[in-house]
């Protein structure tokens, strides 16, 4: 008699899920619900005066010039970080996958940056690139390049893009490497036998077979670029100079915690949540169709 694989117990699944659900409710749904509620209120910083103002906060936020600038910054910043992080990750994975001497060492070392906390990573970059106390920063100024990211907005944006992308390269590298290693050698050998050049082999055989990994990484990288880059920006530039590196997530922090405008900040949070949900949904709808599983 074959062993049946139907699970009999009705209660056990819920019991097993309960701790995770509890965490999700307490740390995700509860704060999100509070943010939505707060976005419909106008309060003074201490919360002693509250007024229900419908969608006034949303109107204020969307008609604010600084908000539109933050949207532009975010698109530019996220696009650059995603391209840079995924492109570098893929390049490094392809190179590290080759049978070269010390491949194991490279693979290990390329994973290390992922273990560094974002704020620490940003401090490391600060100590390299600061115009007065950074090694490379001072060198650049001595050579004659006017490097001062504390005053120059473009340089500041460049620096935070580099720092944020550096953090994420390792993550992409690991996944791309795993994806590459799961491609059967026989397919590649068949392509070589058929006369494909290395370049054709990559773009016509390897890259399509990597598409599940790529799709997954695009989703994760978008979320990273939108949300997890807060630590990097806060430690390096604080959104400055003159809001050049103020992305949407950083603006939520500045308006809520520093400027004590909790209603406006919550409204921005809700808008950002909707934007990322839409982006992810779009990715699943349109890009997943082109993924070869």
């Amino acid at each position: 008699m074959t062993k049946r694989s139907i699970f009999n117990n009705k209660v056990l699944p819920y019991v097993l899920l309960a701790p995770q659900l509890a965490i999700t409710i307490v740390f995700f749904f509860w704060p999100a619900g509070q943010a939505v509620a707060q976005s419909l209120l106008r309060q003074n910083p201490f919360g002693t005066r509250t007024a229900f103002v419908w969608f006034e906060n949303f109107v204020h936020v969307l008609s604010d010039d600084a908000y539109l600038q933050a949207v532009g910054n975010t698109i530019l910043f996220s696009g650059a970080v995603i391209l840079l992080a995924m492109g570098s990750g893929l390049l490094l994975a392809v190179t590290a996958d080759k049978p070269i001497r010390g491949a194991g060492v490279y693979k290990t070392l390329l994973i290390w940056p992922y273990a560094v906390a974002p704020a620490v990573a940003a401090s490391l970059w600060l100590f390299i690139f600061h115009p007065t106390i950074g090694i490379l920063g001072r060198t650049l100024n001595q050579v004659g390049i006017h490097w001062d990211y504390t005053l120059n907005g473009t340089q500041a944006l460049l620096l935070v893009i580099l720092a944020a992308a550096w953090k994420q390269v390792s993550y992409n590298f690991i996944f791309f490497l795993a994806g590459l290693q799961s491609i059967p050698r026989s397919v590649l050998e068949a392509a070589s036998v058929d006369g494909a050049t290395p370049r054709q082999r990559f773009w016509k055989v390897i890259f399509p077979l990597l598409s599940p990994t790529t799709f997954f990484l695009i989703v994760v990288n978008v979320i990273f670029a939108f949300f997890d880059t807060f630590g990097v920006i806060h430690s390096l530039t604080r959104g400055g100079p003159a809001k050049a590196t103020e992305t949407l997530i950083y603006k939520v922090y500045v308006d809520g915690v520093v400027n004590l405008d909790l209603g406006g900040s919550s409204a921005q949070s809700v808008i950002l949540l909707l934007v990322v949900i839409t982006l992810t949904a779009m990715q699943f709808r349109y890009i997943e169709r082109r993924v070869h599983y």
Partner: protein
Amino acid sequence: MNRVLMGIILVLALVSGATFAGSLPAGAGFSPTLVAQVPGGRVTVDFWYGLTRPLGDILEGIAFDFNNSQTKYRVNPAFKGAYPETMQAAIAAFRAGNAPHIVQMFEVGTATMMAAQGAIKPVYQLFKEAGVSFDPSIYLPAVRGYYSSPDGKMISMPFNSSTPITFYNKDAFRRAGLDPEKPPQTWAELRAAATRIRQTNAAPCGFTMAWPTWTNLENFSAIHDVPLATKMNGFEGMDTEMQTNSPLHVRHLQTLMDMHREGTFKYGGRDSAGDALFPSGECAIIHGSSGLRARVIREAKFSWGVTYLPYHDDVKGAPKNSIIGGASFWVMTSPRRTADEYKAVAEFFKFISQPEIVAKWHMETGFVPITFPGMTLVQALGYWQANPGADIPFKQLTRSRPTRNTMGLRLGNMPEIRVIFYEEWEKAFQGTQTAKQAMDAATRRSNEVLRRFERANAP
């Protein structure tokens, strides 16, 4: 086997459920500020402050002196980050029901704190309810007026009041061929001195400033007797508007931009970031808080001096008295406060207002002696004779009778307004906008902030 597994999992679920249930009610039982009233133990009071080292250490020393001087109360000082971070921490703590007893709030947070009616306990009320005697007339008028209500009742406890002054590097002056005993008094003289220092390379940088908006916008307006905002800089009402796009303000920013372009002025960054550039010897002249003195004494390896902030000598009425900076102590309420705890706070405040403490605080830092008895004690000790220049902050604060423009300022969301000015000035220094555009944009944006404050706080 199945049943054993089920049993183990149920037990685990119960335990984790109990842990969550126990920790969900915010604050109850887990709060470290809950006072343990052990019979015979001390009443403890949490005191959050925002002064960095070395000043923070000296302040903690005063708290420990209070603890050692009696056995009934204990003050627990805790550093919560610089002034902006301490303010955010206090507000977040209050919203969570965990506010500290005392919080040190910088002077530009005064309007926000005063508008928080239920969250703070005014100092005059604290003393009355605790039955501790308190005489507000011992405080200097500039200090007392800044932290009192329009009808003269003191709302927060002044402690560390500073004013910005000029520190200069005497060795660098000597190297540049300038007279180290005759520091520049006007902006024209300062610019000439900085130019000379750069030409002779007596120092890598001529002139910089810390707290740029405080030294060169707020105090600039006071010294030149021009308003920073209408309604007596906000004292008379929340419907105040910024007056910072006046020709004089635009002209001053233009002067700074010209100096930045010619290399005589180096923008040191926001808030206290510019502090580091003077004791290291990099910049020969700095506009900074009088409280910077403690750090300069410890770190400067050159001979240095202090003098007044400079003024444009073609402005009528200049120079007037400067306005105070620094911070004061606010008493925060909480549903769980007891009368004993408020009494502890009142006793601590009484302790720090004694002339000995006021004098000691002034002599060890650069903050001014804020009470008349304290000032008399400092003079009696001969401190000002022994340390020439230590009395400059005090003299600059009392240089003239305060006018409507020199009483100080009370603008809501001032930290946000300062950041707006930092941003517009930074763009101007980068050359991406003119001085007029910068001041117009900053004035417009600041007025929006003031209107938002008014909407959220108007009775």
